[in-house]
């Protein structure tokens, strides 16, 4: 079955640390990939997306993600996190241009000031 897996449920970092959140999907065909972020008390918003082309995509607020097809991965990175990055992050995939986006279970990121 098609699925999206996020490796970490809860991550705690200090400010200025580097961040990498893992995401893997299970599907052998064409896939569009997304990272969403949900700040406390706010709605889900799109952080970045990959459709095709350059596998390194840049999003808002200094985030980037790399699509590695051979590893079925789409990891989210940020070189230096800030306290305001405290949020829940969701990896998601649209497989074979389907209508339904499949979400991972989310990673809660807590940044210590």
């Amino acid at each position, binding site marked *: 079955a098609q699925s999206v897996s996020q490796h970490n449920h809860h991550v705690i970092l200090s400010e200025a640390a580097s961040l990498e959140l893992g995401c893997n999907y299970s599907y052998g065909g064409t896939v569009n990939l997304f990272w969403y972020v949900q700040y406390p008390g706010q*709605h889900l918003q799109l952080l970045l997306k990959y459709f095709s082309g350059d596998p390194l995509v840049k999003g808002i607020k200094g985030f980037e993600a790399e699509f590695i097809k051979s590893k079925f991965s789409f990891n989210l990175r940020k070189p230096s996190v800030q306290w305001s990055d405290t949020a829940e992050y969701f990896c998601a995939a649209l497989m074979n241009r389907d209508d339904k986006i499949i979400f991972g279970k989310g990673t809660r990121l807590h940044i210590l000031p």
Partner: protein
Amino acid sequence: DVKVTQSSRYLVKRTGEKVFLECVQDMDHENMFWYRQDPGLGLRLIYFSYDVKMKEKGDIPEGYSVSREKKERFSLILESASTNQTSMYLCGEGLRGQPQHFGDGTRLSIL
């Protein structure tokens, strides 16, 4: 800017009540979705609709129904609310093959 409006941020209902959650989008997009969000489980798709009067079951449709009489409005109905339906409900909308936009969510408590 895309706007997805959910009728209530917080709602408290009693077991056995019929509950309506409303969602309105202002972009004239085809697809609309209802998810529930629970800690540790992420977003789980309840129902989605790709056109007026069309609906498809998602992963957890049991105990829910939906209505889409107009393109901009997608309603989620809990026929007879139960305590295990206490959750955060998110409405999303979008074009086919494109990322979705979401409303602020409705935190529903069933007593």
